[in-house]
């Protein structure tokens, strides 16, 4: 069974204190790994797609990396506006229509001023 776990469950950082969020996955064959940001009361906002081990993507203070078993979302010098829940999801080769996007439970990030 395909599984996605995320750690830590919650993370509190001081403004400017860099850190990383982890997404570990167990799948039969990875078609893609996706990172999302979700603000309270809103739908998830797409951030990155990673397709193969060694791939990296960057956007402002965020950088996503991928290995064969996990992905990291690195946050450099975070600001309070980076506070949100970060979700990762995987799609496998058993999934022909995206019907089996397996989402992790998320990491709730709080950045204090």
């Amino acid at each position, binding site marked *: 069974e395909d599984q996605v776990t995320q750690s830590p469950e919650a993370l509190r950082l001081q403004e400017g204190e860099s850190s990383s969020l982890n997404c570990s996955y167990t799948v039969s064959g990875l078609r893609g790994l996706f990172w999302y940001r979700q603000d309270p009361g809103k739908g998830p906002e797409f951030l990155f797609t990673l397709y193969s081990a060694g791939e990296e993507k960057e956007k402002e203070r965020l950088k996503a990396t991928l290995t064969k078993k996990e992905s990291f979302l690195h946050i450099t010098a975070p600001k309070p506006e980076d506070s949100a829940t970060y*979700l990762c999801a995987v799609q496998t080769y058993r999934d022909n229509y*995206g019907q089996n996007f397996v989402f992790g*439970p998320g990491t709730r990030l709080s950045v204090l001023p």
Partner: protein
Amino acid sequence: SQTIHQWPATLVQPVGSPLSLECTVEGTSNPNLYWYRQAAGRGLQLLFYSVGIGQISSEVPQNLSASRPQDRQFILSSKKLLLSDSGFYLCAWSGGVGQPQHFGDGTRLSIL
């Protein structure tokens, strides 16, 4: 650019009443469409997906149904709501296999 609209944003309904939530996508054709439910502090649960007009697949047996009357319109319905139907409902679209899903802003449904 593509946009997804979902309404209403919040809804309070009595037990036993019907439900209709609507989702429309603009700026793309033949999208894959999805309905999810997100319980507080929990992950996203896929309810229905559709790869074309009139084509609906259900992932979880439940009190809800979905329909796709037009290419870019997806509707979530119920004939009689249960207390357990409360939650945050999200509609999403994707361009195809290997493509990310893009979400609407959701509907907060409370059943009284």
